[in-house]
Each structure stands twice: as C-alpha cells, then as structure tokens.
C-alpha cells in the first residue's frame, strides 16, 4: 500500500518549478489544488517522503545518490512552502540533515581514514530501513483479519437464563467492630444504654412479634414454653413487658381475673 503515490516516473528536479503555477508542475509532482491538503497526509513524515523518492526511482537504499535525493526532497519542501502549506518542523530538520550529509560527502577524505570512518549516509540509511520495516509491519497488521471488519464474534441469546447472585460473606469480627464503632460514637454524643443482657430478651421480642403477625391474639401463657423452664419464662416475661413498654403489644384482660391475651398494637404483617 504505497498509498496515493503517483505512477512511477523519472523525477524532474523540482527546484526549477518553484513559484510556477501548479498546472505547470511536472506530472510526477502534479498535485491537484483540492488535494494539496492531502499531500502532507499522504506522507507520514520526512522518512516516508524520502523512502518514496528512493523506492520510486529504484535507488539502492544502501547507496543512496544523496545529491540527487537531496535536490528532489528540497524541491518538494520548497514547493510546499511556495504553496503556503504548513510544513511540520520535522521536514525542515530533514532538509538540514540531507544538506549536512551532502556537504560531508563532498569533503575529500584521506585514504587511510576512509576505512574506519563511517559513511555519512549510514545513520540516515539505518533510520530509513528501520522506518520501512515498521511501515511494512503496519501494512501487514492492517491486512490481518480483524474483528468487526472481517470476523464477527458469534453469540446466541441466553435471556431465559437466570442471573445468580453470589453474596459476599461477613466475618463476625467485622460485625462486632462495626457495632463497637457505633457504640463509641454514641458515647461521644449522647447517653445511650446498650445492654448485652437484654439480647435474649430482644430475640424473644422479635419472636413474639412474628407470632403475633400470624394471629390476632395469643393467650398469655402460650408465650411461656414449659420446656424452657424458669430462665426461659423470665426471658419471655421480660420480652412481653418490654414490648408492652415500647407499645408494640397490648395485654388484654376481658374481665377481672379472666384470661390474659396479647395482641399487636397495630395490625402487623410481613409487608
């Protein structure tokens, strides 16, 4: 994918056409006016432009005719400039690099040092080759079969399948430390009694309320299961009294010395 590159043709030195009307540019450099903006986007930078010039003319990348390439490259740059196009600084930097290499190539080099001294073009060639590798890699990457373009994930519906929830667990120590925090905060703010002895009473309170949810009234004595013995009876009594105190239940007696019944103060329910 050498992109929008025009058909291969021997390049004219474009410096000659600087300032000339666009229509009179040599064919190879002809860029339709509406495509001027696209021109710089066609090349991914100075390395890309240089590669284009080299490849197009079948120059050996390892033995670039630097004078020729420099002239052509600078021709493009000047043309861009004359067309008042914004040139990225990288293009100008490359022009300077080319000029520098050219001047170094022109300098006569003593025979004895020629062997050790690196070719002034070496660094540029290395960069060009490196860039060309990734340019090719990008083209190959683009040709890989790709999801949403060439391949599509295959899926089937599963709407009727329920989504189970997996709940996190709580450790007792976390619950305790949470409660201790609450109590500590309470101690700082107001006086509040939390007493541990009433826990079994509180549990019994919940149980009685639950039983009352299913029954209009309960006989007082049914709240005292015999098998629990004396301690159980005390817990139940405290629970009944606490519920009464909190006005959650009423203890009713229809006639003096009649049977005691217990009912929820308001109609209760699990709603």
């Amino acid at each position: 994918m050498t992109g929008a590159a025009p058909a291969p043709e021997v390049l004219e030195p474009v410096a000659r056409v600087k300032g000339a009307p666009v229509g009179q540019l040599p064919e190879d450099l002809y860029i339709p006016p509406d495509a001027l903006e696209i021109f710089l986007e066609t090349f991914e930078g100075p390395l890309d432009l240089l590669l284009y010039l080299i490849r197009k003319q079948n120059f050996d990348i390892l033995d670039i005719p630097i004078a020729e390439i420099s002239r052509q490259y600078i021709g493009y740059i000047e043309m861009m400039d004359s067309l008042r196009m914004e040139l990225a600084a990288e293009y100008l930097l490359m022009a300077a690099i080319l000029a520098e290499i050219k001047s170094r190539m022109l300098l006569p080099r003593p025979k004895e040092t020629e062997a050790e001294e690196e070719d002034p073009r070496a660094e540029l060639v290395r960069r060009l080759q490196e860039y060309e590798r990734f340019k090719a890699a990008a083209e190959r990457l683009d040709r890989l079969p790709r999801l949403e373009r060439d391949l599509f994930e295959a899926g089937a519906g599963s709407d009727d399948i329920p989504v189970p929830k997996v709940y996190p667990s709580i450790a007792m120590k976390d619950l305790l430390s949470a409660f201790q925090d609450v109590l500590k905060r309470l101690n700082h703010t107001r006086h509040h009694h939390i007493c541990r002895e009433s826990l079994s009473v509180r549990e019994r309170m919940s149980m009685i309320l639950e039983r009352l949810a299913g029954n209009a009234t309960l006989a007082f004595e049914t709240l005292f299961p015999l098998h629990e013995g004396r301690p159980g009876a005390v817990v139940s009594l405290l629970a009944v009294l606490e519920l009464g105190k909190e006005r959650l239940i009423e203890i009713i007696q229809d006639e003096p010395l009649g049977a005691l019944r217990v009912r929820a103060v308001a109609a209760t329910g699990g709603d």
Partner: protein
Amino acid sequence: MDLKAILEAALFAAQRPLSLAELEALFGEDERPATEEIRLALATLADEYAARPLELRKVASGYRFQVRAAYAPWISRLFEERPGRYSRALLETLAIIAYRQPVTRGQIEEIRGVAVSSGIIRTLTEREWVTVVGHRDVPGRPALFATTPQFLDHFNLESLADLPALPEFAVSPELEDVLAAAQTDPTHPSEEPPDPADAGA
C-alpha cells in the same frame, strides 16, 4: 455462497433477533432471494441444530439462536453477579438490628447518627438476614426489623444470645427500668418519643 450459511453467519453475528426483512437486506439487489427461500433455509437450519445445545427460535422481533434452557445450570455460572464487599454502613446497620431488635429505621438512624439508605435495608432483606416482624404503632407505622434464622446460620450461632458480648460497655440500669416500669403499668408509654424519621420510612 450458500444462502443458508449466510443466514446462519448473520444470525450468530447479530447477537439480536433478525427479522425476515433484515435477513433479506443482507443480500444485494441482484442476488436477493425470495422470502420463501429464506423461510425454507431457516427451517433447514433449525433442523440442523436439533441435536445441538442451541435452537433457532422465532421471537417477536425475528429469528435468533438461543441456548437451550436445559443448559441454564452451567450457563448461569457465567453470569454470576458478585457484588463487592459490604460497606461499613451496612455492617453497622446489621449490627444494630442484631443487638437492638426489633428496631425501626428511625431508631437505627438515631443510633448511627446518619440516615440509613434504602439500598442497605434492601440488601439485608434480599440476603434474608433481616426481616420485618411488625410495625410500630406510631404515625407512619414504621416497619420493625429483626434478624432471621439465616442470619444466625451465617454466623454459626444458635441464638442471638450467642452473639459476642461487648465487655467494654458497662451494663446499664435499663433492665431494672424495664422491670420497674412494667410492674407499675404494662402499657407504660415508651420513653422514646416517636422518631419523626420513622414517618417517612
């Protein structure tokens, strides 16, 4: 290219039901098959999947491949929701309900000093750790929350009395008060005035 295979490819790629019109639109004008041909191909396709765990079904908006319901026990594991850890606010709310039950939301808020979000109460009831055991007879009739046997099971407790005590907090005279108050008048009004926050609960 095979009509049936193109339909099959499209139905799997779409990941939503495709109507007959949409299936027809897969084809360019010059190669578009008749609706009847498409119907026929779909029927053949459905047959070919008869022995597979998928079925081609016609639903309201079109045709779609679906995983057969028999595979739900395994497939559902794919979609398990694993909510993150419980928040501090939830732990505190649960602890208050456990130690102070039955309590209203207003009472929990009073103890915690901040509002209790509905989300927390919902999570605790969904989890079946907390249930409504009644309603308080005050304006708004706020629900009374208590813990459940499932809550005890989770913490490996036989009864609430097995909840660890909190030794650093002195035993209050509350128990004495309860006895004293109860002896004089069983309908002794609560010392706690009805919490206005309860009304909105």
